[in-house]
Each structure stands twice: as structure tokens, then as C-alpha cells.
């Protein structure tokens, strides 16, 4: 019996030690000078920029890698690894590359790395998630002129090519490092960016350190840590209590608390996302434009936006997010007019209303909108059944056109009107992102003309026309422009939020 007791005690002591030793590392305090700690809203999936399509991973990858061009704070494009470019013809762009740029492994950056990046990214067999973003590149014919000059052709004239090349999917990887690490490159990233990987604690944090040889000069802070803090209220508390210096995607319910906090600055900005209600324009009764317009007239968008999104959204002003260039501020938005709505419904043969299903995913604001819609449309005799689905099934169902009405948001993360409109309204994208199943030949022509037109002023005119056409066709009801907030401790300097959500830390310092 004594033996048993001794064993039990040894077991208990060993268990206690295991717990203590496992947790015995020194805590990294947020107060260490020149060490910036950031709360990301999710943990990173991989640090191979070609392989991911989630904002949390892209944000980190943007600190480790550079692209040929990069976004300015107002979503323009400026040189990065390319110093200059010119269009050789309407399908080919020639880049002059920056000389003397080093990768984190000490090797020189050349045109071979650019060619390699795009060739591997666009390799169908490789199955990289970022492939579809750059599918317009004619990868077979990328031509290296010399070490620092490269020509990149597109399959068709593609005026938005620079904004797409500035996207995080287009960041340049080191050819030799990819060949060295193979499938493990995502855990051993080698780029030319201002920070290099120091340590990856999977599921917890990515620790970066300053790359002193960066071509723009060393970053302000020596160390940069991204912690994955998935719970919104926990991110708020962490930045309030100084556990982190920067917290991304603050929940709307915490905005006021942080606005009143003197040690935290809340940066609120317009993200390039539009929240909207969409019809399946192929499914009766919504295949009749009068029914779609009637419902557009019947809804009080201001109320929907206010109740569902609060400070995290502002009532939509058009058929794409208003912060994207070529946005048409004069586009017709259906003001609330119940008489006109009744007229249109009667004309369409639905004077007594009808019953329909609003399909949504498990998202609180969308549920709120569906419920308010139910009460606003009841005046027209329209009854709404709400169907809530899991995200994956929801995407599949709406792509397949099995819905009546649904709700989605669209983030045009390149900041280009082509990205904002073409995926959602081009008839060739039915079965993919065109979930309203819009087929409008005049609109298709405009969208193709827009992406082929090299002149920016003419492009703007084309996209403005396209938005007017979309308004008259009413395949969606825009609800709100998205607003995001980043909370930053007051001792952080130089932080400028980017509308894309990929905020850069090269010039961010600590007082």
C-alpha cells in the first residue's frame, strides 16, 4: 500500500513540475523598448504569401516581403522592388528592378526571383490560394531581359495590373529559399521586407526582428510580434491594459470605451468593403426587375445600417464601396417610398405580396437586417423566412443559385473598381462570385471595356456608367460601407491605418 502511495505522490509531483516547467518561460513584456506587440484578430496560417487568402496572414506577410509595387496610404501605387515601369504594348508591362536589394538570407534580389514567384504562384498543380488573384498574367511568356529588367505580359489587356501586383498575393519570394525549404517555406519565409522571421510559436505568436539591410532603411522598432487574439473583447482589453501596443479590428461595442481612454488612440477608417442584400435575379419573383426595385424602395437603409452596424458602418452611398476610386456619388439609390413600391409590385402581379426566404450565414448583423427587413416588408404583404447556414454551405448554395435573397459583403482589397464590380456582376462569373446571377450584356461590355482601357479618366467614366446600369437593374440593395478600427497605445508613433487592412510597421516607432 505504501508503494502505491509513493507512486501516486511521485506522479502528482511530476505532473506539477511538467506544468510549471512547460510554463516557465519568461514573459515578454510589452514595455521592452523597441519591441512592438500587435494583437492580430486571428493566428497566421502560413508565411508563404502565395498560399494564403486570409487577411491575418497577409498582414504579417506584408512586413516580411515586398512586392514589385506597393500601395500608398490612399491606395495608390508606388515603386517598391520595381523602381520604374512602362507599357511595351497594351498587354505587356516592363519593370526596371531595384538594384542592391537583399533577401533576408543575404542573397541579391534579381528578375529571376520575380519570374520564379509568379511561375510557381500560377502553377495549377501547386494549388496556391493566391493563384486566382493573378490569373490574368500570361505566365508562359514572362521574359527576363536582364538581371534587373523583366517583362510581364497579361492574357488580355488589363489596365488594373499594377493594383493587382500591389496586392499581398503578389509579394516576391526568394527563389533559392523556396528551393531549399520546399513545402516548409511557409515556416521559413525569406523575403526582402523590413522584418524577418525570428520565431514562430504556432497558434500563439509570430516574432519578427528588424532587417537592417532593408532597401528603405531599417525599421523604427527592433522587434515586432504579432499575437493571435481571436476574441474581440480580449484584444480591446489587451490594448487597454498595455499587453499589446496595437490591436486590429476592434469590436464596435468597444469603440466608445476606447475613444474615452487617454492612453489609447482609436484609428477609425473606411475599409473598402460594402455590405449588401442580394437577390437571385434568375429566381422568381426576383427575375422581375420591378420586384427588385419595389423591395429596394421599401427598405429603410439608414435604419438597417444603423441598427446592424452602428459605428462599424455608414449607410451605403452606392453600388460599390465609396472609398474606391471611380465611385459614382450620383448613382440612383432607391429612397424609401412605399407607394412606389406598391405600384411596382402591383405591376409585376404581386399586389398581395408573396413569401420568400432570406438565406444568411451565422452572422449577427445579417440576422438583425433580416429581422428588420421582415417587419419593413410586411407592409407590402411580403413574408420573410430566415434560413441560417454554415459559411461553406452558404457560399456553395449562393454560387449555385439556390437562394431567393441573401446577404454578403464584398472587399475590393486591391482598391480597383474592376475588383469591386467585375467579380460580382460579370455574367461569366456566375457559379463563382456573381451570386446575384446577374446577366446583363451591356454591363458585361462595360466591365470588359473598363479593364481594357488604359486611360484612367476614361476608365472612371466607364465604371460610373456601369454603376448606373447596376442601379437600374437592382441586383443588390447596398446597406453599409464598412468602417474598421485599430486601437493604438499613445506611445506608438507613425502609425497610419491602410484601408486595405494591411497596416505597415516600417515607420512605426515607440516613444
Amino acid at each position: 500500500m505504501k508503494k502505491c502511495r509513493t507512486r501516486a505522490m511521485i506522479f502528482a509531483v511530476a505532473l506539477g513540475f511538467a506544468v510549471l516547467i512547460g510554463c516557465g518561460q519568461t514573459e515578454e513584456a510589452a514595455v521592452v523598448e523597441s519591441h512592438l506587440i500587435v494583437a492580430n484578430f486571428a493566428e497566421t496560417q502560413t508565411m508563404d504569401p502565395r498560399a494564403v487568402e486570409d487577411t491575418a496572414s497577409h498582414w504579417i506577410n506584408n512586413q516580411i516581403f515586398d512586392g514589385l509595387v506597393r500601395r500608398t496610404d490612399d491606395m495608390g501605387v508606388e515603386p517598391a522592388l520595381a523602381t520604374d515601369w512602362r507599357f511595351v504594348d497594351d498587354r505587356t508591362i516592363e519593370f526596371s528592378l531595384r538594384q542592391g536589394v537583399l533577401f533576408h538570407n543575404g542573397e541579391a534580389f534579381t528578375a529571376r526571383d520575380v519570374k520564379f514567384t509568379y511561375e510557381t504562384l500560377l502553377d495549377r498543380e501547386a494549388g496556391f490560394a493566391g493563384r486566382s488573384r493573378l490569373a490574368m498574367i500570361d505566365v508562359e511568356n514572362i521574359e527576363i531581359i536582364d538581371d534587373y529588367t523583366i517583362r510581364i505580359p497579361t492574357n488580355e489587356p488589363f489596365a488594373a495590373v499594377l493594383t493587382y501586383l500591389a496586392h499581398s498575393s503578389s509579394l516576391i519570394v526568394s527563389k533559392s529559399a523556396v528551393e531549399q525549404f520546399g513545402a516548409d517555406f511557409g515556416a521559413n519565409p525569406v523575403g526582402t521586407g523590413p522584418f524577418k522571421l525570428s520565431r514562430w510559436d504556432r497558434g500563439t505568436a509570430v516574432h519578427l526582428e528588424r532587417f537592417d539591410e532593408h532597401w528603405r532603411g531599417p525599421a523604427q522598432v527592433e522587434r515586432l510580434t504579432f499575437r493571435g487574439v481571436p476574441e474581440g473583447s480580449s484584444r480591446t482589453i489587451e490594448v487597454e491594459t498595455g499587453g499589446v501596443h496595437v490591436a486590429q479590428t476592434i469590436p464596435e461595442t468597444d469603440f466608445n470605451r476606447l475613444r474615452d481612454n487617454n492612453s489609447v488612440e482609436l484609428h477609425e477608417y473606411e475599409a473598402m468593403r460594402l455590405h449588401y442584400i442580394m437577390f437571385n435575379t434568375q429566381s422568381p419573383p426576383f427575375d422581375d426587375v420591378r420586384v427588385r426595385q419595389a423591395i429596394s424602395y421599401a427598405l429603410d437603409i439608414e435604419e438597417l445600417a444603423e441598427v446592424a452596424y452602428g459605428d462599424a458602418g455608414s449607410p451605403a452611398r452606392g453600388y460599390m464601396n465609396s472609398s474606391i476610386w471611380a465611385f459614382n456619388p450620383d448613382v440612383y439609390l432607391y429612397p424609401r417610398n412605399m407607394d412606389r413600391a406598391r405600384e411596382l409590385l402591383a405591376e409585376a402581379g404581386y399586389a398581395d405580396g408573396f413569401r420568400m426566404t432570406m438565406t444568411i450565414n451565422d452572422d449577427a448583423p445579417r440576422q438583425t437586417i433580416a429581422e428588420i427587413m421582415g417587419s419593413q416588408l410586411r407592409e407590402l404583404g411580403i413574408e420573410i423566412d430566415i434560413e441560417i447556414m454554415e459559411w461553406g454551405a452558404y457560399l456553395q448554395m449562393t454560387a449555385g443559385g439556390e437562394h431567393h435573397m441573401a446577404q454578403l459583403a464584398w472587399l475590393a482589397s486591391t482598391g480597383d473598381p474592376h475588383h469591386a464590380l467585375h467579380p460580382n456582376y460579370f455574367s461569366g462569373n456566375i457559379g463563382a462570385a456573381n451570386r446575384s446571377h446577374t446577366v446583363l450584356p451591356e454591363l458585361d461590355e462595360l466591365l470588359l471595356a473598363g479593364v481594357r482601357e488604359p486611360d484612367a479618366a476614361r476608365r472612371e467614366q466607364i465604371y460610373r456608367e456601369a454603376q448606373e446600369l447596376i442601379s437600374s437593374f437592382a441586383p443588390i440593395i447596398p446597406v453599409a460601407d464598412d468602417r474598421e478600427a485599430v486601437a493604438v497605445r499613445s506611445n506608438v508613433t507613425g502609425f497610419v491605418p491602410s484601408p486595405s487592412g494591411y497596416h505597415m510597421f516600417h515607420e512605426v516607432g515607440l516613444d
Partner: protein
Amino acid sequence: MLRYIFKRLVSLIPVLLGATFIVFAIMFFTPGDPATLMLPQDATAEDIAIMREVLGLNQPFLIQYRDFLLRLVQGDLGNSFRTGQSVIGLIMSRLPATMQLASASLVIAVMIGLIAGIIAAVRQYTVWDGGAMFTALLGVSMPNFWLGLMLILFFSVFWAASFGYTLLPASGYGTLRHMIMPAIVLGTAHAAFITRITRSSMLEVLRQDYIRMARAKGLSPFQVVVVHALRNALMPVVTIVGLRFGVLLGGSVVTERIFAWPGIGRLLIDAVRAQDYNVVQGIILTYAIIFSLVTLAVDLLYAFIDPRVKTRYR
């Protein structure tokens, strides 16, 4: 005994096969498509078709399951669809955090549960008993997310506002300080169960003749309760503790999310949402193994507590 252990381990194989088959079938027939979830929303139908081909999702169900089993017998659980990382690597990177939190929570749960349960039984129908049972009810009833946020508000926010520093970090992983709040949150609910089972088991034992005999012999109340009664009351408690440990090792999504704890529960939920079949399979397989081993350990522990049981292990 060794033969018994071997038999139990062999019987694990059909259990694991059954578990993987059921999970594979559920994931396969669930509406939705991993390829769609991996790609940007503006991916074309062609992009999605290519991705499905690359991931091998176009194969029939049984072929995919067969391939999974073939890989499994070679010790390969495949790679994550989303990240390309090996599933074993992903699970192993999360297991230590899960083990640490589960062990710490269990220590808290057992300490509170045993002491409160014994006191409640010995002082039946007194204020002590009522207090212990009320606290147990409270422990079961308090939602994890609420208790977690309350602890954070007190130990982090209120403390920082009052004293200029946080007593415990609001979230994160890596030090003992990070573990205290999540361990309390998880431990509290389990402590409540252990309290109730300890109490009822002790009450049953305390009514038996040999306890009366022990008291009549003049043994001290401590000796009677701890040496004579507790040992015999421990059997159901050990069962509950073992099962609870198995549950704790499965991770807690809510607690892990609030405290940004890198446990296996969050990994599973993220994988289910992304329909990352391989990762889900790998984690369920790990759960099944852990749970089976824990129940085996509990069975073996009976022999140490009650030597009479040993004879049954053949």
C-alpha cells in the same frame, strides 16, 4: 495485467477505425466545399475546379477514405488543405498547451472538488454542506465566457486601473501567469462535478458498519474520514476525474478563444469551419486515442485503489 493492457490496446483499433470513418463521412457529406473556402471569393468556377483536383476532392468517398487509411498506416495524417503544413506537426504544436491547461485545470478541480465534497459529506445538512453544494451549483451554472471575462476585468483591467499594472495578463500563453485564469475558468466547472460525486460517494461509505467500527475503536475523525472512508469512496471519483481529464484534453473552444490559448480545441473548430478534412481527421483520431488511453489508465488506477479489482485484469 500486461495481457489485459495489450488486449485493451488492440481493442482500440476498431474504435479508431470507426471514429475515423464516421468523421470522414460527416465531413464528406456536409454541404460546402473546402476549395471554395480556401480561395478568394472572386475565384472563378475554373479556379475552384482546379483546386478541388489538386486537393484530391474529386475522388469518390471510399477512394478518399482508403487513401486516408493507407497514409495512416504509414504514420502520415496528410497535410492541412489551408496551410500545407503536416497535420501531425500542427497537432503536436498544440498538444503541449492543451496538456498544460488540462493538467492545471484538473489539479484545481480535484483540489476544490475533493475538499468541498468531503466537508459537505462529513457535515451533512449543515451550513458547510449547503455552502459547498451552492458553490458547486454556481460552478456548473456559470458560463465559461462570463467567468473568463469577469476574471479578466478584475485581475487585468481593474487591477491595472487601480495599481498601474496588471496582476495577470488578459490573454496569451507562455508563462504560469498566463495559465492561472484559464485554468480557474475550466477547473471551476469540473470542480463542481467532483464535489457532488465526492459528497454522495462519501455519504454512502460513511454509513457503512466498518466506519462505525472505526469510530468505536476511538480513531480520530481525520483518520476515519481520510484513511478509512475516502479510500473506498474514491472509486467513482476517480472515474469522473478520468473522464473529466479526457474532456479537458479535448480543449475548450470558448476558454481558448477568450484567453488566446493555443489549444487543440480552437484548431479543431477552425479546421471544421474551413472543412480542412485532414486536420479534422487527425484531431479526432488524437482525441479518440487520448480518451481511450485515459479510460484505460482509470481502469488500471482502480487496481491501485482497490487491490481486489486486480484479479479481474486478466
